[in-house]
Structure formats: C-alpha cells, structure tokens
C-alpha cells in the first residue's frame, strides 16, 4: 500500500562500501549511514580458541577478557569510565576461530572508540590483580553453568559430536583448566596470536568514510607484531558413525533441555543455501518451522523447539534445541525424529518452499535497518568472501533452491537413526 520513501539510505553494495587495506594487513570497511547520530564498530582478528591445547581450555577467552583490563596508559577504571561517561560501549568476545569486538557510540565519540580499541589491542598489560578478578568472575560463571540446563545440554552435545576436536571444547573453558592458567600463559598467548594480519574492522554510521579510514590508520596503522602468527587454520570436518547420547542430571529443575543434531557444513560450502532453506523449513519459518508446528503446537510439549544451522568458517553442527517437561522427553524426541523422517521421505510442498524463500528474501530490509545489522552483513561478506554484491545476488541464490535440493540435503545430513543427543535436566 505504501512505497519506499525518497530518503531511504542505500543498501551495502560494491558502490557504497568503502574498503581499505592498511600496510600491516588490517582491512577497514566503512558504510556511511546518516539516519541517526550514532556509529557502530565491529570486527575480528585471528586469535580464537582453536590454538589452545585441551589442557589450556579457556585461555583464548581469558586473554580476550583481559584486553580492556589495563593498558600501558589506562587502568581498568579509566577505560570503562571513558567509555561509559559518554554512553559508549566496547567489548571483546572469543570464538573458536576469531576474537570479535563490537562497540557503539554517538558519532561525535567515534575517535574515543577507536582509541580504546587500538590501545586494548596493542598495549594490554595484563595486571595480575585484574587477572585475579576476572578469573573469579569466570569461575563463578562456570559454576552457574553447571546448573544451567540450556548451557549444559549445549556443552554436552558439542563434546559428543566433536570428541578430540576444537569444536568439542568449551571456549570459556572448565573449572579445572581456568583455575590452572598462569599469567605467563596469557601473555605468551597474546604475543603468539594477536596480530593485525588478517584483522577486519567495519564501521557503520554517521561518519565520513575517508575520515574514519584515516582515523583507523592513525591509531592502528603502526601496529606490528612480527612474532605473532594469527591462526587461520580450519579444523577438519567430523563424521558421526553411530548414535551417541549423553544425559547430565541437574536436580531441582522444572524443565529439561535437549540438543539433538548432526555435523553440518561450512558457510562456504556450495550447498550452504540449500541447507539453509532446508533448515528454515525444518525449524525456523514462522513459529519455529515444522518442529514448532508438531512439537509445540500439535503435541503441546515445549515452549521452544527449533533448529539451527551453525555454518561458520568450518563445518559447525546442525542442531535441534528444545526445552521440555522432563516427563515428556521421549515424546519430544520422537516428534523431532518424525519430522526428520518426513523431510527425507516426502518432498516438501512447492508452496512451503516458496514461503521459506519469500521469508529469507523478504526479511532483508528489516535485518539491514540498524547500524548493527548492516555491520553484521558487511562483515559476513568479508569473512566468507561472498563479494560486496552479495545482497544484490542474494534473492536469486535463495530462489535457485529446489524441492529436490531440500530432500537431497535432508537425506545427506539429517539421519533419524544416527544422531547425537544431549539432555540436561532433573530426569
């Protein structure tokens, strides 16, 4: 009924994204958006937990957590005071492959955000007292995790599907590993892995692209770390030769959580879009797809039951996640597996596929509404080498998936006999 207005800002595209590579290997991506007086900054560098040994689990995450706890010129207090006093925020978080950072500020404070980002990355001092404080917070969190059904089901599932594999270990670590980490473990990890080489930083908001690239260059352009080797290695995919199940008993809880799944595929896999459509039909579309229709709506067994395809740099898991009454666990698993069989045995309806395709293409404007949403899209294009024209090509990629593709993918990935199942709860 109403068409787009004349003042809409443009979509990220090869024409609107400014990309620069600094001599030290940092890629800077800028997209100007002047619709609100704020700016978002996000990015990553190659210092994730993949480089840890099993005995050091939690080390990379600990290091990332220490970056903003003291630098050569600022204390913990000064860093956070400076940010929060202008309503800005910045944080680091560790994943398997990369350490990500994200922040936002009023546009007038973008230089402060860049200064603190650059300082935290290049000049952290790892003060022992701050290390002790952070260790206490991590250990408290791990203690909470042990009684959290959602997190324990997830952790147990990863260990089942990925034994002896970096994807099978907790990025946050374990009580016994985190309590053993020493200051020199942290500092040597930092020296070995933190490098501008391959780092990417995206800035979206009410800024001038040329000016902000100069600003990044002036605070991060001189960073050199010749001794560091950023780890861009992708661990091999796993296979699941037999059904594996495990249950963690947590007394006193009202609900059990379950994770049921299989090895999935990487974001760069040529079949990714087919798998994404299959997953959308399976457990996303509308109110949690076919899984939601059967297990929540028809069987009334769960408040949430959905599927997620974690296709990243490597082949992450393809999971069904549900929170169910402990008395109904078996019924819920049966309901999930019945939907797996149906997806394999019966071709999906043309209309159902069309619904999911319309959803994936149609939801683009909303996903790109905010600075955060645009930064996320731009970083994905860079991280997975999708090309900056990806958003323009995207509708055709989605539309190219066929009913046969969905059935073929379901048969290849989703096995109703062979799966990993982790349950955490009072059962």
């Amino acid at each position, binding site marked *: *009924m*109403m*068409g*787009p207005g004349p003042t*809409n800002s443009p979509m990220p595209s090869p024409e609107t994204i400014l990309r620069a590579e600094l001599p030290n290997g940092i890629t800077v991506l800028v997209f100007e958006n002047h619709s*609100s*007086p*704020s700016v978002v900054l996000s990015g990553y560098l190659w210092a994730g937990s993949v480089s840890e040994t099993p005995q050091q689990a939690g080390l990379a995450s600990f290091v990332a957590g220490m970056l903003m706890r003291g630098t050569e010129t600022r204390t*913990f*207090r000064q860093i*956070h005071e400076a*940010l*929060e*006093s*202008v*309503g*800005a925020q910045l*944080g680091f978080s560790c994943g398997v492959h990369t350490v990500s950072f994200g922040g936002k500020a*009023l546009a007038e404070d973008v230089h402060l955000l860049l200064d603190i980002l650059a300082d935290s990355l290049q000049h952290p001092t790892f003060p022992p007292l701050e290390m*002790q*404080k952070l260790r*206490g917070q991590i*250990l*408290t*969190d791990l*203690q*909470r995790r*042990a*009684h*959290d*059904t*959602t997190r324990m089901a997830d952790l147990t599932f990863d260990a089942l599907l990925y034994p002896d594999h970096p994807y099978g270990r907790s990025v946050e670590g374990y009580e016994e590993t985190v309590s053993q980490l020493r200051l020199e473990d942290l500092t040597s990890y930092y020296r070995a892995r933190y490098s501008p080489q391959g780092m990417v930083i995206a800035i979206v908001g009410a800024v001038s692209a040329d000016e902000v690239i100069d600003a990044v260059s002036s605070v991060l352009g001189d960073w050199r770390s010749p001794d560091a080797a950023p780890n861009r290695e992708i661990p091999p995919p796993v296979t699941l030769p037999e059904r594996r199940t495990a249950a*963690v*008993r*947590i*007394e*006193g*809880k*009202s*609900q059990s959580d379950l994770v049921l799944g299989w090895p999935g595929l990487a974001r760069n896999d040529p079949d990714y879009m087919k798998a994404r459509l299959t997953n959308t039909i399976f457990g996303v*579309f*509308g109110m949690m797809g076919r899984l939601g229709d059967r297990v929540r*709506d*028809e069987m*009334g067994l*769960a*408040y949430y039951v959905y599927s997620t395809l974690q296709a990243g740099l490597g082949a992450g898991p393809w999971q069904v996640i549900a*929170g169910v*009454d402990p008395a109904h666990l078996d019924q819920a698993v049966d309901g999930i597996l019945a939907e797996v069989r149906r997806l394999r045995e019966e071709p999906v309806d043309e209309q159902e596929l069309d*619904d*999911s395709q*319309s*959803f994936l293409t*149609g939801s*683009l*404007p*909303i996903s*790109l*509404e905010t*600075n955060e949403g645009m930064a996320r899209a731009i970083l994905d294009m860079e991280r997975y080498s999708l090309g900056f024209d990806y958003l323009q090509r995207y509708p055709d990629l989605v539309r190219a998936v066929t009913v046969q593709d969905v059935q073929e993918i379901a048969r290849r990935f989703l096995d109703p006999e062979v799966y990993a199942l982790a349950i955490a709860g009072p059962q």
Partner: protein
Amino acid sequence: MTIQRDVLDNGLTVLLKESRHAPVITFWVWYRVGSRNEVPGITGIAHWTEHMLFKGSEAFPKGEIDRQIARNGGMMNGLTWLDFTTFFETLPADRIDLGLRIEADRMVNALFDPEEVERERTVVISERQGAENDPTFLLGEEVVAAAFRIHPYRHETIGDLCDLQTITRDDLWRHYQTYYGPNNAIVVAVGDFEASRMRARIEELFGPIPARANPPAVNRPEPPQRGERRVRLEGPGNTAYLEMAYHAPAAGDPDFFPMVILSTILTGASGMNLFAPPPPNRSSRLYRALVETELAAAVSGSLSPMLDPFLYSISATVRAGRGLEEVEAALDREMDRVVREPISAEELHTAIKQAKAQFAYSSESVTNQGFWLGFSSIIVSTDWFETLLDRLEAVTVDDVHRVANTYLLRRNRTVGHYVPQGPQEA
C-alpha cells in the same frame, strides 16, 4: 519528532510517526491490560490470552499469522507484562497492510477454540517451568510478592502454577471480551509511510469495531512499607544471589526522573533497545563496590517506568567463595552513602549523557520507536517519552539527594537471599 495523535469515534487512540530512513514500517496494538489487572485464581490470564490471539480466527486460521508474516519478510510478536498486552508486526513498507488486517481482525474475531486452549495450557506451563530453572526468576518472584501485600503487581505475569492448571476457556473468553475493546487500545505506526494515508486505512479497518463497556479500574494501591522485609529462598546450585528491592515512584511521578539518574549512578544506564542486552555498567558505584572488590561476579539494577509505583531492584551474583552477608554489607555501605552525601555534579552530567546515547541508539529501529510510543502512552503519555531527555536534563543534584532520602531507605525495601544447597548431581 512529530507524532500525529487521533482518537477514532469508537475510542481507539491512533499514534503515527513518519520515519523514512529505511523501507520498513512497524505497527503495534496496545491494550491497557496486563497482569496488573488480574486477581488470585486467574493469575497469568493476560499472558495466556495473548497466546490465544495467535491461535486462529475465521480470517486467519491457526498458523496463518505466523506463515503470512514470515512469508512477507516480517517479524512479529506478542508481549505481556504488568501494565500492558501488546502485539506488533514489522514489515517491509509495501507489506504493512497485512499487519493492520491481522490486528483489526484479532481485536474481535479470535476463536478461543477449546482444544487450542488446552494445548496452550501445556505450552504456558512449559514457559513457566523454563523460567523456574533460573534461580534469579525464583528469587525475583519471592521478593516482589513480599514487597507488595495489596497491589496486584505482587504476582508474576506468567501466573501461578495452580491458576495455569485451572483457568478455563470461559475465563479466557471473559478476559478477551472485557479488555480488548478499541476504547481500551492504542494503535501505533512508525516508519516509511504517509501519515494521512495510514490514518485513512486504520480508520477503514478499525473504525467499524464497536466500543465495549469500560473495563473495571484497578484500585488496590500499595500502602507505604513500614519496615524492611526479608525473604530467604533455598534451591539447587552452588551460586548465591542477592536482591534488594526498594519501592519506587511511578513513571508519571516527578520523582521518577531523579530516580532514573540515581539508578544510573548506582547500577548503570538503562538500555532502551527492546532486543539488546543492557549496556555495561563497569563505572557504576555498585560495580566498583561489589565486583571490583571481588565480592560479586555481577551486579545490575532495574527501574522500569510503570503505571503504578513499582520497584527499583538491585541484583547481585555472589562470587564463588564469598558470602551473601558480606555482599549485603558492602551494598548497605553504598546505599547509606548515597542517602547521606549528595552525588557530584559530574556524576549527574555523565548520567544525562548516557541517557542521551541510549535514546539515540534506540531510534535506529522503527520497532523500538513503536514500542516506546505505545508503552509511554500506556504508562503516562507520549509527551512523557518526547520530553524524557529534557526532564532528565532538568534534574539537579538536590533533586537526586531528596529522592535518595525518600526512597532508598531500609524500611522501604525487601531483601532477598537465594541460598544454594550445594551440588546434587548424581
């Protein structure tokens, strides 16, 4: 920011705001009913009724709303809380008519099929069970119930389990018939549209819906608290939690604005983004007093704008190896200090700047703006939202000191301890 405000002949309030930065429109319907309007025996009914409005009408059979919104690339949801029940659709601008048609339809035509009511009973009970898995939910429920003896804010929006087991289809139907009249509702649209055309379409779809009798008023004000109340809750786990809840002014009370400044200084700025975690509070007084001193692993505060006076709650996660008593003692020292000594001008200035930044961030999304327009209209008025930053800027150091001395007193608070009973894994 120009808001066009109108009231249709049937009493429906219409709030429109053009925002052309992205080709997206958000459409909300707000009903002036929440768990505040419930009585024992039917607690949880506002939330359950909200669920039933997704369960089918003649025009949109069960599942059709989900399917059509998703098919059109939109997002939608229903939210129920103490003061309101609301539904929204955010869609690409050229698809928004679907949202308007869904909302006009379900204002009167939801079926409440008895079989669907029964299926939803187990879903709502599961939702409660999921919440019960979190010790902080259990503690919060106990603290609020102790803080309010009279006012219906005393029970959780999800409802008490016994009521969720016994509420009938007729109870739900009666709730729907009582509260879902256009004269008890506000519609809000924000985004990429021309206000006059949007206004005409809303009139066309909602205008014919007849007004209902005015719903009963809630008139059970909470008497002043005359002494500290304490609750102790035991449960599984190894982690202890502390909650301290002070009775606080309603959003429409002039004291609310200095109270916002006070809560910002003590526990950090409040986020205004519906879909984002709260902003960090590492420079706040209580973070310094509890977390930097290694007594707590985390501390947070919550001061929600409410229709009736509610609570300013402070929650702390006790660090492994530390005790509830020492955390409470440290908290008391800080609370006593803020009552005794005025805050600094710099603290005031910083708190105002933080609020401005949160306000700017939240304006990026039309969905957020739609939320705030409708929400402020329910609790006070849209003026309240439009003048929020001005009102905060007008707060003085003395205002804050006076408000601290009015509300942050021990006799005005409820203290809750969650005492973990240790590991019980098999």
